[in-house]
Every structure is written in structure tokens, then in C-alpha cells.
């Protein structure tokens, strides 16, 4: 039945933002775990972990995110788990985020000059202590602006979870459109909601970037 676009619809759309944020945070958590491994492997001095990290990033970044979502949504159900869309989406987005975060963090790690490591050795720090007190504090400062930038990508891309039936902002928009038949107003509102999530982060990432340049 077609009905008018009411204030209640707007309210439900705003509420659906919760699920967009929840999915983003889940993907960020999963992606960080994978990303750490990829970064550590990619910055390693040994060939095998470097190749593995390179292969992982190349594979993930060479296939559309949409395809990853479908592969996990259908693939994991073949193995016998009948997964709710939230789990399939979390796995899919974590795999995707892991590759991009891994690349960002690997770049930050290898941007630290070798002399910093050597200085650590010279004052008698162990490998772990060098990482903990010398390398990571500097690498984090380099990595944070692009990581916040990627977070914006991640928020926007969670919209693709709509296609495997996970009800977040975009899916809620589709359902509202189906009920009210006011696609223009609804999608405009959906876009505005995404914008209000992403734009502050974009600005913040730019401020951080500027601050880092200023320090140097």
C-alpha cells in the first residue's frame, strides 16, 4: 500500500544510522586485526610474509566489494553455516578493510627510517622495545590521518550490505521508498545522513594531516 512520507519514516531512517555505525565499527575491529597482520607481514624483512601480505592485498583489492559480500554470504552457507546477513557482512567488510588498513599501516611502518631502528639497537633496546618505544609511536602519527580517511570509505561502503539484505541506512531507504513511493525525497535524505556522518570525519582527517605537516 502506498502511503505518504511521514515524520515517522524520517525517524526510522535516522534510527537506521545506528546499524550503519555498528557495521562500520565491527568491520573496523575485524579489519584492524587483519590489517595488523598484513602490515607486519608487508613490512617484514623475510620474503614469505611479504609475499603473503602482497598477495592478500592484491586479491582483495582486485575484486569488487560487492563480490566479496556475495561470496561470504553464499560461500559460508555452503560450508554449513546459515549465517545472518550481519555476520556475512561483518566478515566481508573485515576482509576488505583489512587489505586497505594493512596497506596504510605498512606504508607508515616502512616510512620510519632504518636509522631509528639502529638508534634503538645502539641504546640497547630489544626488538620489542624498539617497536614499542621508537617505531610505533612515530608510525601511528603518520598512519592516523589516512586511517580516518579510510573510515569514511568504510562508512560509505557499508551501504553495499543492503544488497545481501542487511537493514542499515540504504536498505531502510529502499524499504521506505517501497512503502511511500517517494524515492527522490527518501534517497536525498539518506544521502544527507551519510554526508553528516562522513563530512566531519573528512574534515577531521584533513586537520590531522595539516597538523602532521606543521610538526615536520
Amino acid at each position, binding site marked *: 500500500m502506498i502511503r505518504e512520507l511521514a515524520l515517522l519514516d524520517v525517524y526510522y531512517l535516522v534510527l537506521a544510522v545506528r546499524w550503519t555505525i555498528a557495521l562500520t565499527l565491527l568491520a573496523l575491529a575485524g579489519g584492524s586485526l587483519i590489517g595488523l597482520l598484513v602490515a607486519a607481514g608487508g613490512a617484514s624483512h623475510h620474503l614469505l610474509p611479504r609475499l603473503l601480505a602482497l598477495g592478500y592485498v592484491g*586479491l582483495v*583489492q*582486485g*575484486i*569488487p*566489494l*560487492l*563480490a*566479496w559480500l*556475495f*561470496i561470504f554470504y*553464499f*560461500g559460508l552457507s*555452503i*560450508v*554449513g553455516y546459515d549465517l545472518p546477513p550481519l555476520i556475512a557482512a561483518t566478515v566481508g567488510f573485515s576482509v576488505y578493510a583489512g587489505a586497505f588498513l594493512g596497506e596504510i599501516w605498512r606504508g607508515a611502518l616502512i616510512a620510519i627510517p632504518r636509522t631509528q631502528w639502529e638508534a634503538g639497537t645502539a641504546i640497547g633496546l630489544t626488538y620489542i622495545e624498539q617497536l614499542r618505544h621508537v617505531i610505533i609511536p612515530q608510525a601511528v602519527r603518520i598512519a592516523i590521518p589516512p586511517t580516518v580517511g579510510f573510515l*569514511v570509505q568504510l562508512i*560509505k*561502503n557499508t*551501504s*553495499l550490505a*543492503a*544488497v545481501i539484505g542487511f537493514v542499515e541506512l*540504504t536498505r531502510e*531507504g*529502499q524499504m521506505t*521508498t517501497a512503502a511511500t513511493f*517517494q*524515492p*527522490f*525525497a*527518501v*534517497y*536525498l535524505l*539518506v*544521502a544527507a545522513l*551519510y*554526508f553528516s556522518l*562522513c*563530512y566531519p570525519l*573528512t574534515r577531521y582527517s584533513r586537520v590531522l594531516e595539516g597538523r602532521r605537516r606543521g610538526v615536520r
Partner: protein
Amino acid sequence: MAYTFRFRDVLAQQDAILDGLIVTIELSAVTITVGFVFGTLVAIVLLYGRPWARAIARSYVEVIRNTPLIVQLFLIFFGLPAIGIKLDVMTASLLALSINLTAYTAEIVRAGFESIPKSQIEAGISLGLTGPQIFRHVVLLPALKNVYPSLSSQFVLLMLATSVVSQISAADLFHAGSIIQSRTFRDFEVYTVISVLYLCLTLLMRGGFRLCYMLMFRR
């Protein structure tokens, strides 16, 4: 695991796959061309335009870069007819993809322009080059060389992102996948085959861009 993989059923649909592949390549090629040309123009406005033009260009870039492509696509395909502008699937897809890529390209090319030191332009002036000559030889070409890596990876990402147009049933490679899926019920196999094809396209594009770089910028 009781599941037996059967790729044969999927591969038997090679005509549908090939048709989809061609549409994906066409979509990508047209979008990249349009996005590159208009993105460069928008970048010029962002830096050298009058204040009002700059403000418009800046808002355009920020709005597009901070909203999802699929929502932009839905707004154009489902939203515009509601206010009287009806577009067919391919036009809507090309429009949405081009509007999207133009914004990203503009931001990248602008960064490239800004990477050119002022002293280079002054050197151009003191050599007696005209304005357009300076823009072409001192600003544009070196700027494009500087941002070539980010620009080419943006284009690869765009090619992958064209898969989103399957959601408004444009007949691209990904849509071919869902058609074959409904014919054969081989979900997993279908999307594996489709993914491998996208991966091949990605590798081909990366190789092609590397080759272009060597041909264009090696002096």
C-alpha cells in the same frame, strides 16, 4: 562438507558472461574518459576559478566524496523520474559513475597542481612562455605525472565499483552473475568465476597503466 562444486554449469553460460564483461569494460572506459576530462576541468576551477565558481566546485566535490555511490545511483535512477527526469538504465549508470569519478579525479588532479612549486611557474614566465604554454608544459603535464599512481588506482577502483550498477539491473558483468545464479542456483561458483574475471581486469588495467606511464613520461 557434503557440497560438490560444479563450475561446468556456470561456465556453460559463457555467452552471458562475455556480454556482461563487454558492458563492464564499456562502462569503465566511458566513465574514465569523462571523469578524467571533467575532473581536470573541475580541478582547474577549484584552484583558479572565481570565488563563487570555486565554492560550487568545492561543494560538489565534498557532497559526492562523502556519500555512497549506490545512493547516488539510486537517487539518479529512482529519484529523478519522480521529479520528471526519466533516464534509461545505461544512461543513469553512466551519469552516476561519471559524476562520482569526476569528483574523485578533481581532488587528485588539484593535489597534483598544488605539488608544482611556484618557482617552476616563475621560471616559465622568465623564459617568456605564454600563459597556456606554462599551464600545459609546466603545470598540467608534471602535475599529472606526480599524481599518476593515485589517479590510476582510482580508475581501477572505479572499474570495480561499476559492479554497483547491477543493482539497478544494468547488464554488466556482475548482473550477468546474478542472472546465471538464478538459472543454475550455483551461487558460490558463479561469484567465484565473476570475481576471477574482475581480478583479471584489474591486473590488465594495472599493467596497462604501468605501460602508459613508461610510454608517456619516460624521457
